[in-house]
């Protein structure tokens, strides 16, 4: 049962369980879980999840369902954002 | 039903699109200094406050006018300056305890909000919903109304 850190930032932070620290929560997943499974588990749609990073690496929308997570992975998600 | 500007300062970001829209409506140029609505930047309290005439029932400006140049538009409840009659004496500007009727030295006349004849440009231009044009009864812009009442001399004397 891999344990994965899920980080939801900006407006998505509201979806985290209460009491989450540093915009992160731990998710215990089944073997073979994909990034897309984790996101849908939190009721997040592809459209909301504009930027998904797995350990800092960008996961394009069409690869989220095929990208598996393993123990200790960090999935970080943002809605569309900008800065400068 | 009469409608009124509902102003929610907590939604205002201080962008002044309302001021530009107002001056454009009246003068076809972008000139915040000529706007009849003004955004106050209360910097010390991190608050922006759009501010204009509430079309108060006391109508201080109207009563102060010596030449009948300010009249009530009965359909909208607005107090409207008639430029052809205004002599620019400025008595209304000191009589209005809200400071929402102002002298324009370029035109030699006073200017105030007239709700653009029922389609206020400021409300249309506001990007955040801080200024909306709604049925007067539901405004809860009671705050300004309340203020208007407080400014009544009778009330003031009893405070």
């Amino acid at each position: 049962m891999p344990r994965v850190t899920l980080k939801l930032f900006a407006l998505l932070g509201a979806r985290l369980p209460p009491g989450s620290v540093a915009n992160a929560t731990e998710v215990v997943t089944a073997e073979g879980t994909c990034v897309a499974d984790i996101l849908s588990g939190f009721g997040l749609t592809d459209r909301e999840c504009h930027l998904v990073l797995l350990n800092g690496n960008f996961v394009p929308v069409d690869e989220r369902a095929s990208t598996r997570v393993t123990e200790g992975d960090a999935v970080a998600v943002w809605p569309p954002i900008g800065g400068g | 039903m009469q409608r009124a500007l509902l102003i929610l300062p907590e939604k205002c970001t201080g962008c002044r699109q309302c001021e530009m829209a107002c001056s454009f409506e009246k003068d076809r140029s972008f000139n915040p200094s000529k706007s009849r609505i003004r955004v106050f930047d209360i910097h010390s309290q991190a608050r922006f406050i759009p501010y204009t005439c509430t079309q108060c029932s006391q109508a201080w400006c109207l009563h102060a006018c010596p030449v009948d140049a300010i009249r009530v538009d009965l359909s909208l409840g607005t107090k409207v300056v008639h430029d052809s009659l205004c002599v620019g004496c400025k008595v209304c500007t000191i009589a209005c305890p809200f400071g929402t009727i102002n002298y324009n030295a370029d035109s030699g006349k006073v200017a105030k909000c007239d709700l653009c004849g029922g389609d206020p440009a400021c409300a249309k231009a506001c990007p955040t919903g801080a200024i909306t044009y709604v049925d007067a009864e539901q405004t809860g812009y009671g705050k300004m109304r309340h203020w208007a009442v407080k400014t009544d001399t009778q009330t003031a004397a009893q405070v």
Partner: protein
Amino acid sequence: MHHVIIGAGPAGVTAAETLRREAPADNVTLICGEPGPPYSRMAIPYALAGKIGEDGTRLRQRDGHFESLGIAVRHDRVTAIDAAAHRLTLAEGGSLAYDRLLIATGSSPARPSIPGLDLPGVHACWTLEDMRKVTAQLRPGTRVLLLGAGFVSCIILQSLVQRGAVVTVSCGSSGRMVRSMMDETAGGLIMAWCRAKGVTVLTGGRPSAITSAASGLLTTLDSGLTAESDLIIVGTGVKTNTGFLAGSGIELDEGILVDGWLQSSLPDIYAAGDVAQGLNLCTGAREVHAIQPTAVEHGRVAALNMAGKPTPFGGSLSMNTLDTLGLISCSFGLWMGKEGGEQVRLLDAGRFRYLRLELFDGRLVGANTVGMTNEIGVIRGLIQTRIRLGGWLERLKRDPSRLAEAYVACAQGLAAE
């Protein structure tokens, strides 16, 4: 019930309209001492300047306004009042009975005792008729001497200049301009401004004599200085029109003393406007405030009381605004200060900007402004509502020009911090 109103200025007209609205079944008679429809003295300078015609001075623009409201307008003058009999004596003969009476006869120019004041070419400029006389003699280049540099003179000054007159103002013994509404600094700025605009301002004392010379009227001041002009306009102050009340038993001081309901010392007789000496909001004393907003407010409140709707008068705020050749100045309330209060001043003489605030007990009580027009009315708001400035007090002491911000913040409940 018959309500009679003497005087068709702003106080009288507002009272008549208010009575009509509040007591629809009653009779209302408005006695108008001058010919023509009721007009506004405030507008005379603009008519004199040619900015508006005589019609533009009318207090109500619509023809038949009073008739349509069922207000009887009677052109006549009242010569005496029999309070016991509830009856007025009229100049044109006859008398008029009233149930309730409002005296709103206003004021008229005070004539100083100067030899030569009766000479042709010496006028007041108070009524429309006065204005017609002045206008008839006014040409571009006409030399006009204004006797007195008070509000009335100063407001005419601009009109005369706009008509192309060559204007001289005599400030009288004080040597100051608009001293009843502006402090010495503000008056000095106005004087400097007028001089810079080509107006001659004389501070050489009081006029002692006017004589007729071949080249015009020669005015001698008590300093010995002389001024020559084609026309003299007397604007040395006003007095309340109470002469016809002699023997009526009504209590008079500077004007008709009225109580907190604008009633005089006599039953069923009220007074309003320039002639009334009512409560001053700022001082708590009874004073004459000869200004349009007070006249209107008096008229409204007196009428409510006459109509049987007891309405206390909260007191008037003395305030005024003046435009001298484009320089706008204002005064409010206790601009001269209040004992134990604090004063904040900002002066930029080079740019003719001045702001003086008088603060007392954490509130604004008075102000003088020169060169400021934006949101000027908030000064009235701050004084009248007696807003506690809270944290804004200190900010205003650092920068008094942030008045409007202070007012709006306080209005939004952001005063505390």
